[in-house]
């Protein structure tokens, strides 16, 4: 089975981004960029499937400018067999991304497609579901466990009430949650090896000519700050303060 994993280049989760004073966006100049954490988990899962013999090829795909080749190379160093860059200088809204991803799926014919449940920059949580809809295939979002059984898979999903198990036919789209696995560290020799692995570039326009941008992004602002609180010395102080405020 071939597994396609979509990985997005995002501001590293440890960076506290700041809104530019003119409200035109956030400052990303010079900040550390990484593979979206959920996508790294998706890639780790695909690699474990290959190691277990359920997958035989792992392909990482990223849509973006040449800078996303950095994350694709990291994906190759983690162990992906090959990489594809969907070359675009535009910020793709989820439906546009899904449309392009579907075109690539039709070329590559994977048995399983993995995405992160959400990109930690736009926090949209849409692309996987949209891809599954356009493809007319099953979706299992927020996966905490994936068990492949031949032509179907049992996926345990994180839902508000606890855990839900779905049985889905393959091919299918699965999006990953944090508890699915812990991604491996990249070793130095693997970074060297990754330089020799194939990285193909396909122009966005070769995959889709459809423009699905229907949202206009306007002014950015910093979040409302909570006003500075007080410190109390002990439990008596805490209880007193709560009573004063009428909270107990």
């Amino acid at each position: 089975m071939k597994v396609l994993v979509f990985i997005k280049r995002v501001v590293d989760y440890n960076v506290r981004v700041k809104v530019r004073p003119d409200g035109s966006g956030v400052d990303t100049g010079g900040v550390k960029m990484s593979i979206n954490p959920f996508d790294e988990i998706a890639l780790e899962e695909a690699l474990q499937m290959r190691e277990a013999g359920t997958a035989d090829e792992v392909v990482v795909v990223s849509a973006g400018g040449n800078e996303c080749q950095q994350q694709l190379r990291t994906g190759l160093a983690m162990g992906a067999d090959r990489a594809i860059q969907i070359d675009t200088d535009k910020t793709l809204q989820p439906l546009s991304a899904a449309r392009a991803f579907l075109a690539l799926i039709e070329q590559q014919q994977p048995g399983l497609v993995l995405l992160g449940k959400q990109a930690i920059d736009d926090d949209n949580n849409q692309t996987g579901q949209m891809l599954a809809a356009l493809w007319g295939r099953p979706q299992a979002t927020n996966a905490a466990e994936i068990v492949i059984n031949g032509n179907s898979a049992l996926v345990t999903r994180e839902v508000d009430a606890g855990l839900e198990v779905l049985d889905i036919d393959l091919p299918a789209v699965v999006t990953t949650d944090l508890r699915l696995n812990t991604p491996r560290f990249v070793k130095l020799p693997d970074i060297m090896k990754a330089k020799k692995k194939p990285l193909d570039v396909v122009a966005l326009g070769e995959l889709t000519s459809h423009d699905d941008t229907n949202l206009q992004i306007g002014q950015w602002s910093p979040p409302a700050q909570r006003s500075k609180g007080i410190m109390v010395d002990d439990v008596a102080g805490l209880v007193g303060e709560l009573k004063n405020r009428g909270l107990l």
Partner: protein
Amino acid sequence: MSKILILAEHANGQLNQATAKCVTCAKAIGGEVHLAIFSNDGQAVAKQAAGLADVSKVLQIDHQDFSHPLAAQIAPELAAQADGYGYVLAPSTMFGKDVLPRAAALLGVNQVSDIMAVNSARSFKRPVYAGNAIVDVTVPADSLVVATVRTASWAAAGEGGSATIEQSAPQSDRPAHTRFVELRTEAGDRPDLQTANIVISGGRALGSAENFEMIYALARKLKAGVGASRAAVDAGYVPNDMQVGQTGKIISPELYFAFGISGAIQHVTGIKDAGTIIAVNKDADAPIFEIADIGLVGDLFQVIPELEQALS
């Protein structure tokens, strides 16, 4: 005037309160508000929905395939029902996040995720970068608005409505490729985390599932819901549905207690709308104190029993 269709969430014959919060957001947008209920037997839920203030119609679409909330089944039907509406909304719960983007793609539009405020009928505020930035998103007049509503930003709509209930059968085909197997819940008798007035959370510092019993005991005393940091969930002290934060639950209780939680941005983003935040941490420099309304530097293993006693 525009018509707004809200995808209702329910379980065990009970309408989820997240739906009533969507109604409040819909009111801020302005328009006629309808609710869609997909169920195998939606009568009881439809009645509750019809009683929500400002809802004028409830669409009750019953089919055995809707006995479990599967996106692959519900999304095509929701898209079919959306005909004639200017807006399709759902709560930003796991259910809404699963179903709505699938419907949005079938309707050919991007979704506005997590509306936290309405600037105008077509312009909305939503959080990005784990709540580190807020952005205005405008949907042009010629486009359908499909959006999830960040429930922590909205109060629940009241009661006293008397909407008409319209029953119908599904119009679209339902795929056989996705099958429900089971739902595993650890439903206890504690108040629901997302609707509780008081929530008490524990972090990695609790150290074990057994030690979490201290948190449960305090919660019983205060009739509070119980939450946890990701670290506590990952360590197996508590089940995943108790996680508060960016990738867990976004909550807005009146009172939030954080015991032994450092205050990572991903956790804090889940409690920003809480009324009063109380933090207990033995490290005076813990970032949680930057956002806490009342902070106490101390060892939770001493503070919790003392607090319990003080409250007796």
